[in-house]
Protein backbone atom coordinates (compact mmCIF):
# COMPACT_ATOMS: atom_id res chain seq x y z
CA UNK A 1 0.00 0.00 0.00
CA UNK A 2 2.83 2.35 0.93
CA UNK A 3 4.77 1.38 -2.23
CA UNK A 4 1.68 1.91 -4.38
CA UNK A 5 1.16 5.40 -2.88
CA UNK A 6 4.84 6.21 -3.46
CA UNK A 7 4.49 5.04 -7.07
CA UNK A 8 1.59 7.37 -7.73
CA UNK A 9 3.48 10.24 -6.06
CA UNK A 10 6.43 9.57 -8.39
CA UNK A 11 4.06 9.64 -11.37
CA UNK A 12 2.67 13.00 -10.24
CA UNK A 13 6.18 14.33 -9.57
CA UNK A 14 7.65 13.23 -12.93
CA UNK A 15 4.73 14.30 -15.08
CA UNK A 16 4.20 17.52 -13.13
CA UNK A 17 7.89 18.40 -13.42
CA UNK A 18 7.97 17.85 -17.17
CA UNK A 19 4.69 19.75 -17.72
CA UNK A 20 5.94 22.71 -15.65
CA UNK A 21 9.31 22.63 -17.47
CA UNK A 22 7.70 22.43 -20.93
CA UNK A 23 5.14 25.15 -20.28
CA UNK A 24 7.78 27.45 -18.72
CA UNK A 25 10.20 26.86 -21.59
CA UNK A 26 7.42 27.35 -24.11
CA UNK A 27 6.30 30.62 -22.54
CA UNK A 28 9.88 31.85 -22.14
CA UNK A 29 10.74 31.29 -25.80
CA UNK A 30 7.36 32.74 -26.79
CA UNK A 31 8.18 35.89 -24.81
CA UNK A 32 11.65 36.16 -26.35
CA UNK A 33 10.23 35.71 -29.85
CA UNK A 34 7.48 38.26 -29.29
CA UNK A 35 10.10 40.79 -28.19
CA UNK A 36 12.32 40.04 -31.19
CA UNK A 37 9.65 39.87 -33.93
CA UNK A 38 5.88 39.89 -33.38
CA UNK A 39 4.04 37.80 -35.99
CA UNK A 40 0.45 37.44 -37.19
CA UNK A 41 -1.11 34.01 -36.87
CA UNK A 42 -1.51 31.53 -39.74
CA UNK A 43 -5.11 31.51 -40.96
CA UNK A 44 -6.57 29.40 -43.78
CA UNK A 45 -6.25 31.26 -47.04
CA UNK A 46 -4.11 33.95 -45.50
CA UNK A 47 -0.42 33.18 -45.04
CA UNK A 48 1.41 34.65 -42.09
CA UNK A 49 3.21 37.93 -42.38
CA UNK A 50 5.84 39.45 -40.15
CA UNK A 51 4.73 42.73 -38.58
CA UNK A 52 7.47 45.18 -39.26
CA UNK A 53 8.49 47.25 -36.27
CA UNK A 54 7.55 50.86 -36.77
Amino acid at each position, binding site marked *: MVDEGKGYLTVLYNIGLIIVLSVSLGMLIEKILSLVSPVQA*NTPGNDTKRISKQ
Partner: protein
Amino acid sequence: MITFSMIPNMECSLFLLIFLSLATGTISGFAGVGGGFIMTPALIIMGFPAPLAVGTGVLWVMGNSIIGTLRHRHLGNVDFKLGLIMIVFMMAGMEIGIRALSAATQAGMAETAVLCVTICALLFVGGSMFWESTRSKKKSNRDVDTGNKQTGLLVSLVSRIHIPPMMYFSRSGIRVSIWMLMVVGLVAGILAGFIGVGGGFIIVPALVYIFGVPSYISVGTSLFQIIFPAIFGAARHTLEGNIVIFAAFIMILGSSIGIYFGAQLTRILQDISMKYVLVSTIFVAILGSCLKIAAVLIEPEPAWIQSVMMIITYGGLAVIFLLIISLFTAAIRHRKGKPVPVFLQSFIKDD
Protein backbone atom coordinates in the same frame (compact mmCIF):
# COMPACT_ATOMS: atom_id res chain seq x y z
CA MET B 1 30.28 12.92 -20.80
CA ILE B 2 27.46 12.42 -18.30
CA THR B 3 26.23 9.49 -16.24
CA PHE B 4 22.79 8.69 -14.84
CA SER B 5 22.30 7.16 -11.40
CA MET B 6 19.73 4.69 -12.81
CA ILE B 7 22.24 3.35 -15.37
CA PRO B 8 25.52 3.10 -13.42
CA ASN B 9 27.61 1.45 -16.15
CA MET B 10 26.74 3.87 -18.92
CA GLU B 11 28.37 7.13 -19.99
CA CYS B 12 26.92 9.20 -22.80
CA SER B 13 27.95 12.37 -24.53
CA LEU B 14 25.98 15.43 -23.39
CA PHE B 15 26.63 17.11 -26.75
CA LEU B 16 25.25 14.10 -28.66
CA LEU B 17 22.14 13.95 -26.44
CA ILE B 18 21.44 17.67 -26.97
CA PHE B 19 22.08 17.49 -30.74
CA LEU B 20 19.85 14.42 -31.00
CA SER B 21 16.97 16.17 -29.21
CA LEU B 22 17.51 19.39 -31.16
CA ALA B 23 17.33 17.58 -34.53
CA THR B 24 14.35 15.41 -33.52
CA GLY B 25 12.60 18.47 -32.05
CA THR B 26 13.01 20.32 -35.35
CA ILE B 27 11.49 17.43 -37.31
CA SER B 28 8.71 17.15 -34.73
CA GLY B 29 7.84 20.87 -34.86
CA PHE B 30 7.90 20.93 -38.66
CA ALA B 31 6.21 17.62 -39.50
CA GLY B 32 3.86 17.20 -36.51
CA VAL B 33 5.18 13.83 -35.32
CA GLY B 34 5.97 13.14 -31.65
CA GLY B 35 9.41 11.83 -32.59
CA GLY B 36 9.37 8.81 -30.27
CA PHE B 37 10.01 6.39 -33.12
CA ILE B 38 13.34 8.15 -33.83
CA MET B 39 14.30 8.97 -30.24
CA THR B 40 13.77 5.50 -28.73
CA PRO B 41 16.12 3.57 -31.08
CA ALA B 42 18.63 6.44 -30.85
CA LEU B 43 18.66 6.17 -27.02
CA ILE B 44 19.04 2.38 -27.22
CA ILE B 45 22.04 2.82 -29.53
CA MET B 46 23.50 5.34 -27.03
CA GLY B 47 23.45 2.58 -24.41
CA PHE B 48 20.13 3.03 -22.60
CA PRO B 49 18.49 -0.31 -21.70
CA ALA B 50 15.41 -0.78 -23.95
CA PRO B 51 12.69 -0.30 -21.28
CA LEU B 52 14.37 2.88 -19.97
CA ALA B 53 14.80 4.20 -23.53
CA VAL B 54 11.10 3.63 -24.28
CA GLY B 55 9.92 5.21 -20.99
CA THR B 56 12.25 8.21 -21.19
CA GLY B 57 11.32 8.64 -24.86
CA VAL B 58 7.61 8.76 -24.01
CA LEU B 59 8.17 11.36 -21.27
CA TRP B 60 10.24 13.42 -23.72
CA VAL B 61 7.47 13.16 -26.37
CA MET B 62 5.02 14.51 -23.79
CA GLY B 63 7.14 17.60 -23.03
CA ASN B 64 7.99 18.06 -26.69
CA SER B 65 4.32 17.99 -27.73
CA ILE B 66 3.37 20.52 -25.03
CA ILE B 67 6.06 22.98 -26.21
CA GLY B 68 5.08 22.36 -29.86
CA THR B 69 1.39 22.91 -29.13
CA LEU B 70 2.15 26.20 -27.35
CA ARG B 71 4.13 27.47 -30.33
CA HIS B 72 1.67 26.25 -32.97
CA ARG B 73 -1.22 27.70 -30.93
CA HIS B 74 0.49 31.08 -31.08
CA LEU B 75 0.81 30.72 -34.85
CA GLY B 76 -2.89 29.78 -35.12
CA ASN B 77 -2.04 26.24 -36.25
CA VAL B 78 -4.10 24.26 -33.71
CA ASP B 79 -7.74 23.29 -34.26
CA PHE B 80 -8.62 22.43 -30.64
CA LYS B 81 -12.20 21.40 -31.45
CA LEU B 82 -11.08 18.92 -34.14
CA GLY B 83 -8.24 17.71 -31.93
CA LEU B 84 -10.46 17.02 -28.92
CA ILE B 85 -13.05 15.13 -30.99
CA MET B 86 -10.37 13.05 -32.72
CA ILE B 87 -8.62 12.26 -29.43
CA VAL B 88 -11.83 10.77 -27.96
CA PHE B 89 -12.09 8.34 -30.88
CA MET B 90 -8.34 7.74 -30.92
CA MET B 91 -8.22 6.83 -27.22
CA ALA B 92 -11.10 4.35 -27.78
CA GLY B 93 -9.17 2.89 -30.73
CA MET B 94 -5.97 2.73 -28.67
CA GLU B 95 -7.73 0.62 -26.04
CA ILE B 96 -8.76 -1.84 -28.78
CA GLY B 97 -5.19 -1.80 -30.16
CA ILE B 98 -3.66 -2.47 -26.71
CA ARG B 99 -6.07 -5.40 -26.17
CA ALA B 100 -5.14 -6.80 -29.60
CA LEU B 101 -1.48 -6.51 -28.58
CA SER B 102 -2.17 -8.42 -25.34
CA ALA B 103 -3.87 -11.16 -27.37
CA ALA B 104 -0.84 -11.29 -29.71
CA THR B 105 1.47 -11.48 -26.67
CA GLN B 106 -0.50 -14.41 -25.23
CA ALA B 107 -0.25 -16.14 -28.60
CA GLY B 108 3.53 -15.64 -28.43
CA MET B 109 3.76 -13.64 -31.64
CA ALA B 110 3.69 -10.05 -30.33
CA GLU B 111 7.13 -8.93 -31.56
CA THR B 112 6.73 -10.23 -35.12
CA ALA B 113 3.11 -9.02 -35.34
CA VAL B 114 3.98 -5.51 -34.12
CA LEU B 115 6.91 -5.19 -36.53
CA CYS B 116 4.87 -6.51 -39.49
CA VAL B 117 1.96 -4.14 -38.76
CA THR B 118 4.42 -1.25 -38.27
CA ILE B 119 6.13 -1.90 -41.61
CA CYS B 120 2.79 -2.33 -43.46
CA ALA B 121 1.30 0.85 -41.89
CA LEU B 122 4.44 2.89 -42.55
CA LEU B 123 4.75 1.58 -46.13
CA PHE B 124 1.10 2.38 -46.84
CA VAL B 125 1.20 5.87 -45.28
CA GLY B 126 4.68 6.75 -46.60
CA GLY B 127 4.08 5.29 -50.07
CA SER B 128 0.71 6.99 -50.58
CA MET B 129 2.09 10.30 -49.25
CA PHE B 130 5.08 10.12 -51.59
CA TRP B 131 2.87 9.27 -54.57
CA GLU B 132 0.37 12.02 -53.75
CA SER B 133 3.07 14.64 -53.01
CA THR B 134 4.85 13.95 -56.30
CA ARG B 135 1.53 14.05 -58.18
CA SER B 136 0.36 17.28 -56.51
CA LYS B 137 3.75 18.93 -57.06
CA LYS B 138 3.54 18.20 -60.80
CA LYS B 139 -0.09 19.32 -60.82
CA SER B 140 0.65 22.54 -58.92
CA ASN B 141 3.38 23.37 -61.42
CA ARG B 142 0.79 22.92 -64.22
CA ASP B 143 -2.00 24.80 -62.44
CA VAL B 144 -0.01 27.92 -61.60
CA ASP B 145 -0.99 29.56 -64.88
CA THR B 146 -4.63 28.42 -64.94
CA GLY B 147 -5.25 29.24 -61.26
CA ASN B 148 -6.95 25.87 -60.60
CA LYS B 149 -7.42 24.94 -56.94
CA GLN B 150 -6.31 21.33 -56.45
CA THR B 151 -8.34 18.93 -54.31
CA GLY B 152 -7.34 15.32 -53.57
CA LEU B 153 -9.51 12.39 -54.65
CA LEU B 154 -10.13 11.22 -51.07
CA VAL B 155 -10.92 14.75 -49.87
CA SER B 156 -13.57 15.23 -52.56
CA LEU B 157 -15.04 11.78 -51.82
CA VAL B 158 -15.23 12.42 -48.05
CA SER B 159 -16.67 15.91 -48.54
CA ARG B 160 -19.58 14.30 -50.48
CA ILE B 161 -20.56 12.14 -47.48
CA HIS B 162 -23.28 14.04 -45.60
CA ILE B 163 -24.36 11.59 -42.88
CA PRO B 164 -25.66 13.68 -39.95
CA PRO B 165 -24.52 15.01 -37.56
CA MET B 166 -22.22 17.21 -39.65
CA MET B 167 -19.67 19.41 -37.91
CA TYR B 168 -17.98 22.57 -39.06
CA PHE B 169 -14.42 23.36 -37.97
CA SER B 170 -13.79 27.03 -38.57
CA ARG B 171 -10.03 26.91 -37.92
CA SER B 172 -9.47 24.10 -40.42
CA GLY B 173 -12.20 25.41 -42.74
CA ILE B 174 -13.79 21.96 -43.20
CA ARG B 175 -17.28 20.51 -42.76
CA VAL B 176 -17.37 16.75 -42.17
CA SER B 177 -19.63 14.03 -40.85
CA ILE B 178 -18.77 13.01 -37.29
CA TRP B 179 -19.02 9.38 -38.46
CA MET B 180 -16.05 9.90 -40.76
CA LEU B 181 -14.07 11.39 -37.87
CA MET B 182 -15.00 8.35 -35.79
CA VAL B 183 -13.83 5.85 -38.44
CA VAL B 184 -10.51 7.61 -39.04
CA GLY B 185 -9.91 8.25 -35.30
CA LEU B 186 -10.65 4.62 -34.39
CA VAL B 187 -8.41 3.19 -37.15
CA ALA B 188 -5.56 5.57 -36.24
CA GLY B 189 -6.03 4.75 -32.53
CA ILE B 190 -6.04 0.96 -33.11
CA LEU B 191 -2.80 1.24 -35.13
CA ALA B 192 -1.18 3.58 -32.59
CA GLY B 193 -2.19 1.35 -29.65
CA PHE B 194 -0.99 -1.84 -31.34
CA ILE B 195 2.32 -0.40 -32.54
CA GLY B 196 2.86 1.61 -29.33
CA VAL B 197 3.31 5.10 -30.76
CA GLY B 198 1.59 8.48 -30.30
CA GLY B 199 0.11 8.33 -33.78
CA GLY B 200 1.45 11.59 -35.29
CA PHE B 201 2.62 9.96 -38.51
CA ILE B 202 -0.87 8.48 -38.99
CA ILE B 203 -2.91 11.53 -37.92
CA VAL B 204 -1.08 14.17 -40.00
CA PRO B 205 -1.57 12.37 -43.37
CA ALA B 206 -5.14 11.41 -42.37
CA LEU B 207 -6.09 15.03 -41.67
CA VAL B 208 -4.41 16.30 -44.84
CA TYR B 209 -5.42 13.61 -47.34
CA ILE B 210 -8.81 12.49 -46.01
CA PHE B 211 -10.32 15.69 -44.61
CA GLY B 212 -8.38 18.32 -46.60
CA VAL B 213 -7.09 20.15 -43.51
CA PRO B 214 -4.22 22.56 -44.37
CA SER B 215 -0.83 20.98 -43.56
CA TYR B 216 0.22 23.56 -40.99
CA ILE B 217 -3.04 23.08 -39.04
CA SER B 218 -2.63 19.27 -39.22
CA VAL B 219 0.86 19.62 -37.72
CA GLY B 220 -0.30 21.76 -34.78
CA THR B 221 -3.46 19.69 -34.17
CA SER B 222 -1.46 16.43 -34.31
CA LEU B 223 1.02 17.68 -31.69
CA PHE B 224 -1.90 18.70 -29.46
CA GLN B 225 -3.43 15.22 -29.80
CA ILE B 226 -0.15 13.45 -29.00
CA ILE B 227 -0.04 15.06 -25.51
CA PHE B 228 -2.87 12.84 -24.18
CA PRO B 229 -1.58 9.35 -25.07
CA ALA B 230 1.93 10.56 -24.10
CA ILE B 231 0.73 11.55 -20.57
CA PHE B 232 -0.95 8.14 -20.24
CA GLY B 233 2.19 6.33 -21.49
CA ALA B 234 4.51 8.39 -19.26
CA ALA B 235 2.39 7.56 -16.18
CA ARG B 236 2.44 3.84 -17.03
CA HIS B 237 6.22 3.85 -17.57
CA THR B 238 6.85 5.83 -14.34
CA LEU B 239 4.95 3.18 -12.37
CA GLU B 240 7.14 0.53 -14.05
CA GLY B 241 10.27 2.51 -13.08
CA ASN B 242 11.30 3.04 -16.72
CA ILE B 243 12.01 6.80 -16.55
CA VAL B 244 15.41 8.53 -16.42
CA ILE B 245 14.06 11.94 -15.43
CA PHE B 246 17.39 13.79 -15.73
CA ALA B 247 17.88 12.56 -19.31
CA ALA B 248 14.32 13.62 -20.23
CA PHE B 249 15.06 17.01 -18.68
CA ILE B 250 18.17 17.55 -20.83
CA MET B 251 16.39 16.28 -23.94
CA ILE B 252 13.48 18.70 -23.46
CA LEU B 253 15.91 21.61 -23.06
CA GLY B 254 17.53 20.64 -26.39
CA SER B 255 14.34 19.97 -28.30
CA SER B 256 12.58 23.15 -27.12
CA ILE B 257 14.77 25.18 -29.46
CA GLY B 258 14.37 22.65 -32.29
CA ILE B 259 10.59 22.50 -32.04
CA TYR B 260 10.31 26.29 -32.14
CA PHE B 261 12.56 26.41 -35.18
CA GLY B 262 10.47 23.67 -36.85
CA ALA B 263 7.19 25.44 -36.05
CA GLN B 264 8.49 28.74 -37.45
CA LEU B 265 9.37 26.96 -40.69
CA THR B 266 5.67 26.21 -41.35
CA ARG B 267 5.35 29.96 -41.98
CA ILE B 268 8.00 30.22 -44.68
CA LEU B 269 7.87 26.79 -46.38
CA GLN B 270 5.09 25.34 -48.54
CA ASP B 271 2.95 22.35 -47.49
CA ILE B 272 4.80 20.17 -49.98
CA SER B 273 8.11 20.50 -48.08
CA MET B 274 6.44 19.26 -44.86
CA LYS B 275 5.07 16.27 -46.77
CA TYR B 276 8.51 15.36 -48.16
CA VAL B 277 10.14 15.70 -44.71
CA LEU B 278 7.43 13.49 -43.18
CA VAL B 279 7.85 10.91 -45.98
CA SER B 280 11.65 10.87 -45.43
CA THR B 281 11.12 10.38 -41.67
CA ILE B 282 8.67 7.53 -42.32
CA PHE B 283 11.16 5.78 -44.65
CA VAL B 284 13.90 6.00 -42.01
CA ALA B 285 11.46 4.37 -39.56
CA ILE B 286 10.65 1.65 -42.17
CA LEU B 287 14.35 0.80 -42.58
CA GLY B 288 14.76 0.65 -38.78
CA SER B 289 11.75 -1.69 -38.46
CA CYS B 290 13.00 -3.95 -41.29
CA LEU B 291 16.32 -4.33 -39.46
CA LYS B 292 14.53 -5.11 -36.20
CA ILE B 293 12.47 -7.83 -37.93
CA ALA B 294 15.69 -9.23 -39.42
CA ALA B 295 17.18 -9.30 -35.90
CA VAL B 296 14.12 -11.23 -34.66
CA LEU B 297 14.08 -13.74 -37.53
CA ILE B 298 17.83 -14.45 -37.81
CA GLU B 299 19.11 -16.61 -34.92
CA PRO B 300 21.65 -15.83 -33.51
CA GLU B 301 21.47 -12.07 -34.16
CA PRO B 302 24.34 -11.04 -36.45
CA ALA B 303 26.72 -8.37 -35.09
CA TRP B 304 26.38 -6.18 -38.20
CA ILE B 305 22.69 -5.46 -37.53
CA GLN B 306 23.47 -3.12 -34.62
CA SER B 307 26.03 -1.19 -36.72
CA VAL B 308 23.63 -0.83 -39.67
CA MET B 309 20.84 0.22 -37.29
CA MET B 310 23.13 2.89 -35.84
CA ILE B 311 24.01 4.20 -39.32
CA ILE B 312 20.35 4.30 -40.37
CA THR B 313 19.11 6.00 -37.19
CA TYR B 314 21.79 8.67 -36.87
CA GLY B 315 22.46 8.97 -40.64
CA GLY B 316 18.74 9.27 -41.44
CA LEU B 317 18.25 11.85 -38.72
CA ALA B 318 21.25 13.87 -39.96
CA VAL B 319 20.05 13.73 -43.60
CA ILE B 320 16.51 14.91 -42.71
CA PHE B 321 17.90 17.66 -40.45
CA LEU B 322 20.20 18.81 -43.27
CA LEU B 323 17.25 18.74 -45.70
CA ILE B 324 15.30 21.06 -43.36
CA ILE B 325 18.31 23.37 -42.93
CA SER B 326 18.77 23.51 -46.72
CA LEU B 327 15.09 24.41 -47.24
CA PHE B 328 15.37 27.06 -44.51
CA THR B 329 18.51 28.55 -46.09
CA ALA B 330 16.84 28.59 -49.52
CA ALA B 331 13.75 30.33 -48.05
CA ILE B 332 15.89 33.00 -46.38
CA ARG B 333 17.85 33.60 -49.61
CA HIS B 334 14.56 33.81 -51.54
CA ARG B 335 13.19 36.42 -49.09
CA LYS B 336 16.33 38.49 -49.44
CA GLY B 337 15.93 38.41 -53.24
CA LYS B 338 19.01 36.24 -53.77
CA PRO B 339 18.99 33.47 -56.43
CA VAL B 340 17.62 30.07 -55.35
CA PRO B 341 17.81 26.82 -57.40
CA VAL B 342 14.65 26.44 -59.53
CA PHE B 343 13.75 23.01 -58.08
CA LEU B 344 13.64 24.52 -54.55
CA GLN B 345 11.40 27.47 -55.45
CA SER B 346 8.17 25.44 -55.30
CA PHE B 347 8.99 24.52 -51.66
CA ILE B 348 9.07 28.15 -50.49
CA LYS B 349 6.12 30.39 -49.58
CA ASP B 350 6.11 33.78 -51.25
CA ASP B 351 6.17 36.90 -49.07
